[in-house]
């Protein structure tokens, strides 16, 4: 007897009842077909695994910079993570997102709309930086290195970046911080020139990253410094006076894209 049609094996692996009754019988008695079906079924099981949210994430741009610096390679990737490379990763994220919900068969249109939405939501589900770069017409206005202050020697190993992005309607700040995990939480502030006034942008997540909307109308010429503090869980909304890292918006960044500055 000839072996089971590979198409039928593939469809059976997916859980479809494809083929004639004889196919099922053959696939069970023939060692070769049985093994092939088992291997394909394992792929399907792996893909449909409910336990995890595996998805591809694109490393943030600074990773390549550090690799290039370490090996002495000069050029950044021809397709930097901010556009090309992130696309498949983001799309893939969408697929995983889509997999959370199974669509009833009677709702094809909804299902497809859901798939499209999933692709978009998935982008949002990936790293913040991917989310922002895939949002319509955002552009990088400034990239600011955040460094520890000399008066806080305990933070000398901390480092961070703040990437400011602008869309037509708003400005966003993506902050990533490289610090040890400490009791408390990290909060991001904009500091005014007087050294007293400040605006709280919000808290960093457990991975020490955060995406914040800069309040519309903020005069960034005045609030030109970015500060990250370690805040104790004491209920106070005030800056703890423990600054972990700090950086300044450059004048060119302000001229280049600070649409909300006055």
């Amino acid at each position: 007897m000839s072996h089971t049609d590979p198409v039928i094996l593939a469809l059976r692996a997916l859980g479809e009842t494809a083929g004639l009754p004889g196919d099922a019988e053959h696939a069970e008695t023939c060692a070769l077909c049985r093994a092939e079906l088992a291997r394909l079924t394992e792929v399907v099981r792996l893909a449909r695994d409910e336990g995890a949210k595996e998805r591809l994430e694109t490393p943030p741009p600074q990773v390549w910079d550090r690799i290039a610096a370490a090996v002495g390679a000069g050029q950044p990737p021809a397709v930097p993570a901010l556009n090309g490379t992130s696309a498949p990763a983001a799309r893939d994220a969408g697929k995983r997102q889509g997999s959370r919900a199974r669509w009833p068969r009677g709702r094809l249109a909804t299902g497809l709309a859901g798939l499209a939405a999933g692709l978009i939501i998935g982008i949002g589900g990936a790293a913040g930086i991917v989310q922002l770069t895939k949002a319509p017409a955002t552009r990088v206005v400034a990239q600011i290195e955040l460094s520890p202050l000399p008066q806080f020697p305990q933070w000398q190993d901390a480092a961070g970046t703040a990437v400011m992005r602008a869309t037509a309607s708003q400005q966003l700040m993506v902050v990533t911080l490289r610090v040890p995990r400490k009791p408390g939480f990290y909060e991001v502030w904009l500091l005014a020139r007087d050294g007293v006034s400040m605006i709280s942008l919000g808290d960093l997540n457990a991975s020490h990253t955060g995406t914040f909307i800069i309040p519309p109308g903020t005069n960034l010429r005045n609030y030109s410094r970015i500060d990250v503090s370690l805040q104790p869980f004491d209920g106070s909304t005030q800056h703890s006076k423990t600054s972990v890292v700090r950086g300044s918006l450059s004048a060119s960044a302000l001229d280049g894209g600070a649409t909300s500055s006055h």
Partner: protein
Amino acid sequence: MDYSSDEDVTAAFSGGQPDALTLVYERFGPLVYSIALRSLGARPDAEDVTQQAFVSAWRSRDTFDRRRGTLGGWLVTITRNKVADALRERQRDSRVLLQVAGGAAVTAPEATSDRVVDRIVLADELAQLPESQRLVMVLAFYSDLTHEKIAHVLGLPLGTVKSHIRRGLQRLRSRLEADGVAH
């Protein structure tokens, strides 16, 4: 099966071409980073491991033998080694903390399961499929649609959908057998 682009990347890498690392990073950066991120949780740690893995891969590129395995599989192995190093370092740190604090047990981080790595490899290969085939596979895996319904929904001939599914599954399986760890 179309592995041409991976083969190009592998050839450039083996040949030590100056821009090869760029190509390798573009192709496999998300794979390495995702495994590291899933294994370590914290993004800064995953970034460190990603950096270490690619720097180490580049410096030891002479030891890579394309006849003995795929570049993807080699990178997965390097990544797992770097992840293991990072986890050991963490464990050391927490032991020190434990001594200092003299108290509560610190649970050792668990190594990434083989299954998790395989799922990420699978996600990576899915992302490499041509758009129309990828969509067919995504619907076949996640939508509960039969292949006839998929053909109907996507407006594709039934034969095309069948062939996408058969080749797609086989391609995913081959990639898992080459680069995965649970097989």
